[in-house]
């Protein structure tokens, strides 16, 4: 079946612009996670949803970062007033209920100029 998809795959933004990154999880997966992967680093946790509820947003680096999953399926990560340090690959992952394995999407590479 279809895996986790993310769009766009690549995004170039000018400093100060707002961006929105989309994640389509595997159908029926209850949990959804966002991670940020800077160049040469491992992914770092940003936020976690269980259905439409955002249960953990402890990893969001600033109040410029906002995530939502209004209907418990598709999720959007929004970054306002982008800065150069926001340049990274943003990974989305989903997992079914009662399972601790996460299935990752291909990521969105954000470059802020």
């Amino acid at each position, binding site marked *: 079946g279809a895996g986790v998809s993310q769009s766009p795959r690549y995004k170039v933004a000018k400093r100060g612009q707002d961006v929105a990154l989309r994640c389509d999880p595997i159908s029926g997966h209850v949990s959804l996670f966002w991670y940020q992967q800077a160049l*040469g680093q*491992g*992914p*770092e946790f940003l936020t*976690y949803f*269980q259905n439409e509820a955002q249960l953990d947003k402890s990893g969001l680096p600033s109040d410029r970062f906002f995530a939502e999953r209004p209907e418990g399926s598709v999720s959007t990560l929004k970054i306002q007033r982008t800065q150069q340090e926001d340049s990274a690959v943003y990974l989305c992952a989903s997992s079914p209920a009662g399972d601790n394995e*996460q*299935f990752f*999407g*291909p990521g969105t590479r954000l470059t802020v100029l």
Partner: protein
Amino acid sequence: AQSVTQPDIHITVSEGASLELRCNYSYGATPYLFWYVQSPGQGLQLLLKYFSGDTLVQGIKGFEAEFKRSQSSFNLRKPSVHWSDAAEYFCAVGDITGGGNKLTFGTGTQLKVEL
């Protein structure tokens, strides 16, 4: 807070040689441990996972890992490396206390395979 250390940033092995990638973790309880592989432009693919039980875990593509509680380690091994194994490998520990499974990753080990 949990943490993961992968002490080797780069490793080069010859095709057909054996491989061991090191991973040490810090976690207050029994850890959920994972190894992922990432090829250029690709998402993370799960190789194997440890939750409980047998400390030697078999994964896909001929990989295995051994959980050693006394050493806080979860090293990844493969008896004979193939050129297609060249990629970046990440070890991760899962925290389920928040209801989900928040993963903390190491910084990764880049594997190069010489033909």
